[in-house]
């Protein structure tokens, strides 16, 4: 090779190095055990504040805090190559300034010995998307046909400040509703005083809070509706309709606006779409995604207020034997039966989901360990005494339940789930058909 060609190659090499230096995304190549082989500056910029040992020698170790399950995700990825996770959103601590960040993380398995990761800070994109969604909700609220809607002014505590005709029309309440909490529009087990405060806080914090579900009329009848809460000054700034509403209200400084929409006419279509996204196809209760979404929200609330929060992980005992003996249709009927009993046992505010083949989870807001144990025991008893009605006749089944309660040492949903799983393992180990809490799993050797 002559000198000119060598020089060209060196120039090209340098340009290539700088190209990767400047790439606006974090790129990492590692061995399958996570040991980093190559890493570009943006990856180091994002990962250094996370690395507890101050080194970047292992990808999994460096990301342990925000993605503790990477090793197991990779191990569980059976194919010889491909995308292990694609654009996974990982909340990350913000470092010295304390503002939390959101990272997007992708992991690609190149072959059995090499992996490649991409990391990006998408905090701002996520915020923009949220703003867009906010506007979408407004458009939705205004443009989508609704059977009827009520516009309700709330004070800072979430109590109705005045009666108007729309309240009477949609909910049947007279002016005796003034001074009562917005919980009056919810069925009894669908909201708690704490949750009312959560919704107000969410509205204050992010500009709005929206939930769909059953609403209660004064005569005790239910209708399917959505409730949107927004701080009145935010509404006034955003929207002429709300500005007019806020101008009428007394509590303009600290009050909220609640719009309860009767969605009865549209319930079938919106509910079908919602169910397809968040419900388990077999049992009709929440699916894994719905569980994690709801659990993330509960944990955010927990970090703000540290109210009791417990998690049950429920596993059908000897489910494989049931399947093998009676066949899968009967196994499915047993799972549906368990899901049905869950619906009957737990409150509407509890997050009930099927998170695995024969594994279920229930998140219990406002339940400490003792009350979670009581509820779990009641459910275990219900399953034991009520056989599933199947095509093969009644089939008896039992469940084992592990409990974990949220505390400061528990970093995230995965960690909480892991602790509940450990308690579940103890319950299985002690002979099944029983409930184990954290203390019991510690006491159990092996």
């Amino acid at each position, binding site marked *: 090779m002559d000198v000119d060609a060598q020089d060209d190659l060196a120039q090209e090499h*340098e340009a290539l190095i700088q190209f990767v230096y400047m790439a606006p995304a974090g790129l990492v190549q590692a061995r399958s055990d996570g040991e980093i082989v190559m*890493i*570009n*500056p943006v990856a180091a910029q994002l990962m*250094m*504040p996370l690395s507890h040992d101050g080194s970047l020698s292992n990808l999994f170790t460096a990301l342990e805090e925000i993605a503790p399950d990477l090793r197991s995700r990779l191990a569980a990825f059976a194919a010889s190559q491909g995308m292990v996770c694609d654009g996974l959103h990982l909340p990350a601590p913000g470092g010295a300034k304390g503002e939390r960040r959101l990272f997007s993380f992708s992991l690609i398995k190149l072959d059995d010995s090499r992996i490649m990761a991409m990391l990006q800070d998408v905090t701002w994109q996520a915020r923009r998307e949220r703003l867009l969604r906010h506007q979408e909700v407004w458009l939705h609220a205004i443009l989508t046909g609704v059977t009827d809607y009520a516009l309700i002014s709330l004070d800072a505590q979430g109590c109705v400040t005045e009666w108007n005709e729309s309240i009477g029309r949609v909910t049947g309440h007279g002016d005796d509703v003034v001074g009562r909490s917005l919980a009056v529009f919810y069925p009894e087990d669908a909201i708690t005083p704490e949750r009312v405060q959560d919704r107000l806080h969410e509205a204050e914090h992010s500009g709005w809070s929206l939930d769909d579900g059953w609403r209660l009329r004064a005569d005790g009848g239910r209708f399917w509706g959505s409730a949107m809460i927004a701080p009145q000054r935010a509404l006034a700034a955003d929207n002429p309709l709300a500005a007019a509403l806020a101008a009428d209200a007394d509590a303009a400084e600290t009050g909220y606006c609640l719009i309860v929409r009767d969605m009865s006419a549209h319930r079938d279509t919106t509910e079908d779409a919602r169910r397809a996204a968040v419900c388990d196809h077999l049992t009709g209760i929440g699916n894994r995604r719905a569980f994690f979404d709801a659990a993330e929200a509960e944990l955010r609330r927990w970090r703000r207020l540290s109210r009791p929060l417990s998690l049950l992980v429920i596993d059908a005992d000897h489910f494989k034997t049931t399947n093998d003996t009676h066949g899968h249709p009967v196994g499915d009927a047993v799972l549906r039966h368990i899901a049905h009993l869950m619906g009957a046992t737990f409150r509407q505010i509890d997050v009930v989901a099927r998170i695995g083949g024969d594994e279920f989870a229930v998140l219990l807001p406002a339940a400490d360990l003792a009350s979670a144990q009581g509820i779990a025991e009641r459910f275990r008893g219900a399953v034991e005494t009520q056989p599933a009605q199947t095509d093969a006749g009644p089939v008896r089944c039992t469940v084992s339940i592990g409990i974990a309660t949220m505390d400061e040492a528990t970093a995230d949903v995965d960690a909480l789930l892991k602790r509940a799983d450990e308690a579940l393992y103890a319950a299985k180990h002690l002979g099944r058909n029983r409930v184990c809490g954290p203390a019991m799993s510690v006491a159990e050797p092996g």
Partner: protein
Amino acid sequence: MNTHVTLEFSQPELLDPLLALSAAELDTLEFGVIGIGADTVVRDYNALEAKLAGLSKERVIGHPLFTVVAPCMNNFMVAQRFEDTAAAGQALDLTLDYVLTLRMRPVKVKLRLLAGAGAERRFVLVNRKL
């Protein structure tokens, strides 16, 4: 011609002696030197730093450090510290453990961040001899 100077990475009161050195003299130092202005644009980039990073001076000098040359330092541990101390009108002399991605290899280094109170010039010094 005596261009060889002996400054140590960890010696105290390093800012003024550094400021007195010419580009050729900076090249003789046994630690990496990146000099930046208050606008974060690179003014000095010594031979050792150029060699280890695999980038020639021409590609680096005149460009903003944290966006074009070393995005890895654009976080609260490095970039923010310069900003915070400048905003407070204080001097900065801080040594910290860090990992640089020299030619995409993670390399453990000690960084020394130097800035005078209200001074136009700041330095990031890089020591690989740990």
